[in-house]
C-alpha cells in the first residue's frame, strides 16, 4: 500500500535546537533515505520554509502565507510503498527529526483504488 508521510514541525520549538544538533540530524535524515530507498518512491519533496507559502483561497483570492493558522507546518513529504499500516508506522518512527520537540510525522494512506470510476 502507498502512504504519504508528512513531516511536520513547529518552527518556534525548533528555534531552540542548536545548529550543531540540527546538522547532525540532517546527516541522519540523509542516511535514513538511503536505508529506506527500496520503499520510498521518488515523488517526495522537501519544501522551502513556511514564509515562502502562498495560498489561493475560495473565489480565487491569493494571499501570502499558509492555508491555516496552525503553528505546525509541513516541511516535506515522502510517498512510501509498504505492505501495511504497521510497516508505515515502523518507518515513520525511524524519522530522525522526531528527536526534536514539536516534530511529528503524519501518515495518510493514498487513494489507489479508482475502480468505482471505471
Amino acid at each position, binding site marked *: 500500500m502507498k*502512504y504519504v508521510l508528512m513531516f511536520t514541525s513547529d518552527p518556534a520549538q525548533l528555534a531552540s535546537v542548536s545548529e550543531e544538533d540540527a546538522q547532525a540530524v540532517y546527516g541522519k535524515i540523509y542516511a535514513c533515505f538511503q536505508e529506506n530507498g527500496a520503499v520510498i518512491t521518488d515523488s517526495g519533496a522537501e519544501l522551502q520554509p513556511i514564509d515562502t507559502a502562498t495560498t489561493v483561497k475560495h473565489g480565487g483570492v491569493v494571499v501570502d502565507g499558509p492555508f491555516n493558522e496552525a503553528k505546525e507546518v509541513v516541511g516535506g513529504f515522502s510517498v512510501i510503498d509498504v*505492505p*501495511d*499500516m*504497521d510497516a508505515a508506522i515502523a518507518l515513520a518512527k525511524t524519522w530522525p527529526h522526531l528527536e526534536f520537540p514539536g516534530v511529528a510525522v503524519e501518515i495518510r*494512506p493514498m487513494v489507489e483504488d479508482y*475502480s468505482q470510476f471505471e
Partner: protein
Amino acid sequence: MTTSDGLLAATIREESGRLVTALYRRFGDFDVAEEAVQGAVAEALVAWRRDGEPRNPAAWLTTAAQRNALDLLRSSGRRARTAERLAAGSDDVAPGADEVAAIDPDDRLPLLFACCHPALAPEARLALTLRAVIGLTTPQIARAFLVNEQTLAQRIVRAKRKIVATGIELKVPEEIHDLDARLTDVLAVIYLAYNEAFVASTGSTHDRDLGADAVWLAEVVARSLPDQAEAWGLAALLRIQHGRAAARFTPTGDLVLLRDQDRSLWDASAFKQAGEHLARAASLHSPGRLQLQAAIAMCHAEAASWADTDWLQIVTLYGFLIREDASPVVRLNGAIALAQFGPEQTEIALRDIDRLADELAGYHLWHATRAELLRMLGRDDDAAAADTRALELTTNDAERRLIQTRLRKHPLTDGS
C-alpha cells in the same frame, strides 16, 4: 439473564471473533466480514429465543454470517463480480461452513490486535473489540456503557473504515518490542471493558454479562500468548474482581464497599483459578502493573474480613506498583491501604491524598476517600463536606446512593 440467553451469549462470544476472522480471510473485506457476523448475531438473538437453540449453534451462526457476507458483497455493485465468482465456487473459495469454522482459537488474536490498534481512537478500540471480537451488538454496547446508540454506531463505522482505508492488517506483531507495546494496548482495552461493565452494572438488566465476557477475553489472550506475564496478570485480576461481583451490590442495586461485603458471596473457585494464573505469571519473572494489581486483589480475596487483611503485604505491593505506575489513582489507593494501620498512618495517608488535589479534585472517589479518612480521624464535619463534594461529582446512581447513605448517617453539624 435466562439460562438459554446464557448459552446463546456463550456461543456468540465463542464464535464471533473467529467468524469475522474467517470471513475476512475468505473475502478480503473487513467491513463486510464484521457486518455479516453482526447481522448473524442479531438474527440469532431473535431466532434462537423464538425457536430455541439450534442443534449446532456454531454452524447456524456460520451459515447465517456467510450468507450475509455474500449478500453484502452482491449488494455493493463495485464488488459484485468478486462475490459471484466466490459464490460460484472458483479456485480461492472455501468450500463450506466446516472449513470456515475450523480456525484455531488463537486466530482471534490478530483480529483483537487490529481492533485495539493505536491508530484507532481509544473509545473506538473498546467499542469495536466488543462488537467484532466478542459479538456484542451495538445496542447492547450502548446500553452497557450508557452511551447514545447512534454516536456509538458512528464511532464503530469510522473505526472500521480506518482499518480498511489505512491498511491495518489483522496480525499479532512479530517483533517482541512491538508486541509488548501493542499487548499493553490490548490489555488496557479488556481492562476498560471490565471496569465499564463493573461500574455500569446497576439497575437495568443486560442480556449479556459483560464482566464475564471481559474475563473470558483476558483468558483467551493469556492462553494464546502464554509467555506474556502481564496477560496472565490481567486474567488473574479480572477473575478475582469478577469473583467478588456478587457481593458488590445489594439485591436492590446498592453499592457495597469492599470492607462491608458479605464475603460468603465471594466465589472461591474464581480465586483459585486466579491463583493459578498468578503463579503462571510469576514463573515468567517479568513483573508488571497488572500482576501487582492482581496480587493486591488476591490479598483482599484471601482475607477473612477487612480487619484480618494483610495490610503490610498490600502496602508493600503498592510500593512496587507505584514504581511501575505512579498515576494519581494508584497513589490514592495506596494511601487507603496505608491508612488502615492506625491514626498516625491515617494522618500520613491523608496528607498523601491531599497532595493529589491538583490532579484528582474533579474525581468523585478522591473526595469520597478523603471523607473516609477524615471520618477515621474523627473529623466528621470535614468528612461530610468531602462527601457532599463527591456526591456532586458522581454520575453513577449506585455510587450516589452509597454516599447519600453515608451523609445521612453522618450529617453536617455546622450547617454549612
